[in-house]
């Protein structure tokens, strides 16, 4: 700032801004920009989604109120939803969510116990996958798992004599889901991981010493009675981030297999079902009902997680 002030032209501008700023006292100056954008792009879309979920809407005609029939159809007649999409989503979420969360914690816990420089380098490496753009990364996965002998995994496995024929990893329903899980876990060390690392580093160290004096006997006791309770806010933040990330990465199945719906709906998650009905079949009301169920699921799972972490709400 001071370097800029040396130029007299800037001085005038800064004085002018000062004068304007002197009058800006009302809280509205501060929260209005954020609240406006928040309401327009988050709150209103959620409300519209809820509203549309009770209608038939094909994007051309005006939405027609149909009551609960989208939900009834979804839960009773949509075989793909009940037999593939919902079980897939639950399976995917219940594997990737907890394992990713556990991995983040345990890696952060280990990182906290090595010196600063190696810790920083390893943390950057572990965090880096979450910075890759999902779609751009498709190439890596398609090359690694490619269904013919030029796929790296196939080539290696054939080289070592593990298989004789290349495996159709990405188009085979048996493999697609597992590959999706591995790829998601690979990029699961995100913001929550960083929060937990910072949390562990900031636990009051005298607590550990005091506990040893009081007769603490092993590492597990230490983790469960001191480390985790002392960083509970970060644990919660990490948990919410893990839940959200899990439901957000749903698009990878479509990217990996190159088609929506995925082969035999093997990698079809709720996010893909929304896209399928909303943007491919133009049944926006129906797609909105799926959206609402998805948001409720995320909310419910986050609440359960909070409960598990022992926080009174």
């Amino acid at each position, binding site marked *: 700032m001071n370097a800029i002030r040396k130029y007299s032209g800037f001085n005038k501008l800064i004085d002018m801004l000062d004068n304007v700023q002197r009058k*800006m006292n009302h809280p509205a100056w501060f929260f209005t920009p954020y609240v406006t954008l928040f309401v327009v792009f988050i709150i209103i879309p959620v409300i*519209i989604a809820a509203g549309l979920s009770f209608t038939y809407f094909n994007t051309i005609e005006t939405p027609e109120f149909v009551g609960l029939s989208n939900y009834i159809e979804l839960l009773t007649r949509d075989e793909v939803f009940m037999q593939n999409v919902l079980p897939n989503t639950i399976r995917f979420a219940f594997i990737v969510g907890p394992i990713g969360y556990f991995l983040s914690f345990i890696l952060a816990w280990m990182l906290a116990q*090595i010196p600063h420089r190696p*810790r920083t380098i*390893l943390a950057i490496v572990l965090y880096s996958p979450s910075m890759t753009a999902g779609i751009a990364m498709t190439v890596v996965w398609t090359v690694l798992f490619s269904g013919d002998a030029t796929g790296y995994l196939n080539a290696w496995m054939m080289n070592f004599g593990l298989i004789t024929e290349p495996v159709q990893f990405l188009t085979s329903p048996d493999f697609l889901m597992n590959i999706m899980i591995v790829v998601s876990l690979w990029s699961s060390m995100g913001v929550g991981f960083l929060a937990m690392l910072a949390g562990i580093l900031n636990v009051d160290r005298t607590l550990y010493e005091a506990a040893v004096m009081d007769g603490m006997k092993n590492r597990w006791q230490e983790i469960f009675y001191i480390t985790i309770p002392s960083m509970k806010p970060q644990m919660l933040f990490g948990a919410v981030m893990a839940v959200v990330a899990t439901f*957000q990465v*749903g698009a990878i199945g479509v990217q990996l297999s190159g088609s929506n719906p995925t082969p035999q709906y093997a990698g079809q998650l709720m996010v893909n079902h929304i896209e399928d009905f909303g943007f491919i079949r133009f049944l926006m009301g129906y797609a909105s009902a799926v959206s609402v169920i998805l*948001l409720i699921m995320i909310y419910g799972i986050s609440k359960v997680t909070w409960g598990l972490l022992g926080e009174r709400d």
Partner: protein
Amino acid sequence: MAKYQAMKVDPKGFSKDQMKFYVILIPMAIFVALPILFIISHAFKPMNELFAYPPRFFVRTPTFENFRDLVQLASQSGIPFSKYLYNSLIVTGLGVFLSVFVTSLGAYSLSKLKFKGKKLLFEINTLALMFVPIAVTIPRYLTIERLGLIDTFWVLILPLIAMPVGLFLVKQFIDQTPNELIESAKIDGASEMQIFTKIIIPIIAPALATVGILSFQLLWNDVIGPNLFIDDESMRTLAFYFQTLAALATNQAGAGGANMIAGQGIMAAASLIMFVPNIIIFIFLQGKVMNTMAHSGIKS
């Protein structure tokens, strides 16, 4: 059995009992880094190495061929590569600035100012941490259409400005700054806005850097905006251009044609271009991010 010792957080130097951590952490890091090393290596492979059988992980004779092809491919489609790059830079630059500014203003009001509905607002924002944007793509489209924002630059920026995570992190961070600082500035006759720009902003710089990084990732990597809200090809961004290339490459994957393999090198180059700015920014600002994260907890 040795006497039990408490865990040593942030040790100053290396000691033998850290070995067990390195034994796990280093292989993990290598495993995680492999796909990224692969992109880097693949991006610089000449055609004959891309076609090589058995496939080789590391490049032997690196070349910039793929990057050249990537740029040429763009001009074939009528839009020069530089245009996509320019769009991406403008959208990301302006977006990050606005996001940091709007978020920090909002966070300051939630942390230090008094107004009706403040508590409720923070609670709604915390709830919105669980918000998944893709779930409401359709109503978002309808809202944006109604606002007349389709096919404008703003549509690539505005929907991504308000980040609940960003507001949350900055607010928690401002909570740590002592009220006395603000009170004494008030006695000196400073307005709230002056306090904010002169006192708060310098203190919360680490949190702002964190919001900046998160917002950068969101804007730089965004494909939904240019895909759905923009019809004019000349307003689309790098992320979008690369996505169309990726779609071409994967569609041909089934056929396994020569085009697809050549496309791999180009796509790897594209992925690298997307990834490098993210990692560089993070490496420079990681200390500030860790500082912010220390205050990131959700308290109930």
